[in-house]
């Protein structure tokens, strides 16, 4: 799409290097002149925020790993030592802890943005599916990491989640293989630490693929029409580098509010009690970002079905490009879809709430309805809606829509 010619480097060293490996030309093309739809709104900033969050997680994690001890008798104490004795250890740990929550918050918004504006539709199916893979890897990283402090909730979350495999065929064998023994213990902790260090780098690799796919198809935009001419776009730098920094500042503000003034807000207090295999906590509750899936798991009385549905709840996202049959991409021109979109968001919020409640009485019934709706939305509503919905007229191009808006503003 870009009509800008490759840059001519005046610096001799850069010229020499670039002739042999066009790293500088690539950076120029992908980070500076990269044509970006001029009309994308602030919801398009959450991808770059997720990238920053990933970098924060990896950097703080590397420093934590220098002081952490993966051993059942020492893990808890080593965290206390980080908080008390290591220079700014508390800061590094609280950034890592709260960073995880903020990372998920940002990615959830990022995903919902994609769902609202139909960013998963052709030609962006692979970009979207790579995103789903990233999300699954994030879940793995967060789960593995939560076990490391070896508090009561760490231990029991690990026990509950790993024993989810037991209803599967050969489940007992798989569980023993996962644990490295006959229950969650020291060997489990050691392998979880090893894998927790590995997974973020896998995420990093998939983010690279994600961006590669993105720069191949280019960004979608609120209108959902493809870029047609240069006037539809602005160069990435300085327009979007600067726009992204505005939200980066706001994101860091929110993160730092929690880190400095409510560092344990997202934490369960009982996780400051050291793991004890003989004492089961009254409520075993996962971190907030897993609650919707936990609610789906518990909504189903049959353990195997519950596990299957929980995984299906995420995998169904990957089929979204084919489940949504609408020819119109953006929710902006789909009035009925918009209603269902917000019902879906409300359903997800309800599931989050139910995941935190005890699995009894009205909560179970509500959980079953909310779970049913979750799947109906993807498997019934979206396929049918695309066929029957009356959509609004879609503008012919981005620049046409932008100048029409300007005229409206000028005459008003």
């Amino acid at each position, binding site marked *: 799409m870009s009509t800008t010619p490759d840059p001519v480097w005046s610096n001799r060293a850069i010229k020499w290097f670039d002739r042999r490996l066009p790293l500088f030309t690539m950076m120029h093309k992908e980070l500076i002149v990269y044509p970006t739809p001029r009309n994308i*709104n*602030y919801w398009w900033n959450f991808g770059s925020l997720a990238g920053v969050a990933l970098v924060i997680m990896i950097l703080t994690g590397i420093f934590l790993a220098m002081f952490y001890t993966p051993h059942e008798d020492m893990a808890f*104490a080593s965290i206390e030592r980080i908080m008390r004795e290591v220079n700014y250890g508390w800061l590094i740990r609280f950034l890592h802890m709260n960073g995880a929550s903020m990372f998920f918050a940002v990615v959830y918004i990022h995903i919902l943005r994609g769902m609202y504006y139909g960013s998963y539709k052709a030609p962006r199916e692979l970009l979207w599916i790579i995103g789903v893979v990233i999300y699954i890897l994030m879940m793995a990283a967060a789960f593995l990491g939560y076990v490391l402090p070896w508090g009561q909730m760490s231990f029991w979350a690990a026990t509950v989640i790993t024993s989810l495999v037991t209803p599967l065929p050969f489940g007992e064998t798989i569980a023993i293989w996962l644990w490295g023994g006959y229950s969650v213990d020291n060997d489990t902790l050691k392998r979880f630490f090893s894998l927790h260090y590995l997974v973020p780098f896998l995420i990093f690799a998939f983010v690279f693929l994600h961006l590669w796919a993105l720069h191949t198809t280019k960004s979608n935009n609120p209108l959902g029409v493809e870029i047609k001419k240069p006037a539809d776009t602005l160069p990435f730098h300085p*327009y979007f580098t600067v726009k992204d920094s*505005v939200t980066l500042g*706001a994101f860091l503000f929110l993160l*730092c509010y929690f880190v*400095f003034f409510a560092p344990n807000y997202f934490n369960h*207090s009982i996780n400051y009690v050291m793991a004890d295999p003989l004492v089961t906590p009254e409520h075993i509750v996962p971190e907030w970002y897993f609650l919707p899936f936990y609610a789906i798991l518990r909504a189903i009385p049959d353990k195997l079905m519950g596990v299957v549905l929980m995984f299906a709840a995420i995998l169904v996202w990957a089929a979204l490009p084919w489940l949504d049959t609408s020819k119109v991409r953006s929710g902006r021109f789909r009035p009925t879809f918009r209603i269902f979109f917000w019902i879906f968001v409300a359903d997800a919020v309800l599931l989050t709430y139910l995941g935190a409640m005890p699995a009894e009485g009205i909560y179970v019934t509500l959980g079953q309805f909310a779970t049913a709706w979750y799947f109906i939305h993807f498997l019934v509503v979206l396929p049918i809606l695309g066929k029957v919905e009356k959509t609004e007229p879609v503008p012919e191009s981005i620049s046409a829509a932008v100048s029409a808006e300007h005229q409206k503003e000028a005459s008003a």
Partner: protein
Amino acid sequence: MSGLKGIIGAAAVAVGLVAGAPAALAAGGGHGPELKHQSWTFDGLFGRYSEKQLRRGWEVYEGICKSCHTLDYMHYRNLEQIGYTEDEVKEIAARFEVQDGPDEWGDMFMRPATPLDGFAEPYENDAIAMLANGGVVPPNLSVITRARDHGADYVYNLLLGYEDEVPEWATEADPTFSLAPGKSFNTFFPGYAISMPQQLFEGILEYSDGTEATPEQMAKDVSAFLQWAAEPELEERKGLGRMVLLFLIVLTGVLFAYKRELWKDAH
């Protein structure tokens, strides 16, 4: 711009959640009196510890709690942080005995603690601790305010929450409720039956700074002390946090203004 408004709205909801959280304080089983929230010097954006209060809290810990509870992960040298001088800390440490060794004869021996030692353990092992306390090990107190919902408020209410007889509201809520021998009734302890007898009585202790040692005063001071034990970084954290947040507000504002200027003709 609608996108930005939505994001600000979402952030406001998030902050609202944070602000609203401490409002809901529930007691041990949800039937008895409500947990009473105290005003603490370390609350809020500008919260800091009162060294005087922490030193009184230490006197309560040393005078009463230390015979059953440990302060793991802490060392006598940490007491310098609450205003004791180096010599005072040496003196305090020397009042405790810690095990050392083996000496050249291969024997373990006891010696007075030094500031570099970790706090002495009251019991040699968990079995003895359980034997002495009705089958329960008294928990480590150095993380207790982090390990319980409502932190220092919980500890304060717990220490004052004892009843000589099982109150009516408890038997009304559960007619089968009865206290096992060796247990005490505590309004704020989950399940009400606690293995720690009431500790704070009028006249059990005299403060070196002349403050009157009422049970309320002692409960407050020792709860603040335990808050410090759990979050010794709190003052530094909040101080740095205020600077960081201020910096980020200014930075974000400047970036936003710059963005508006840059985009003026680009829409």
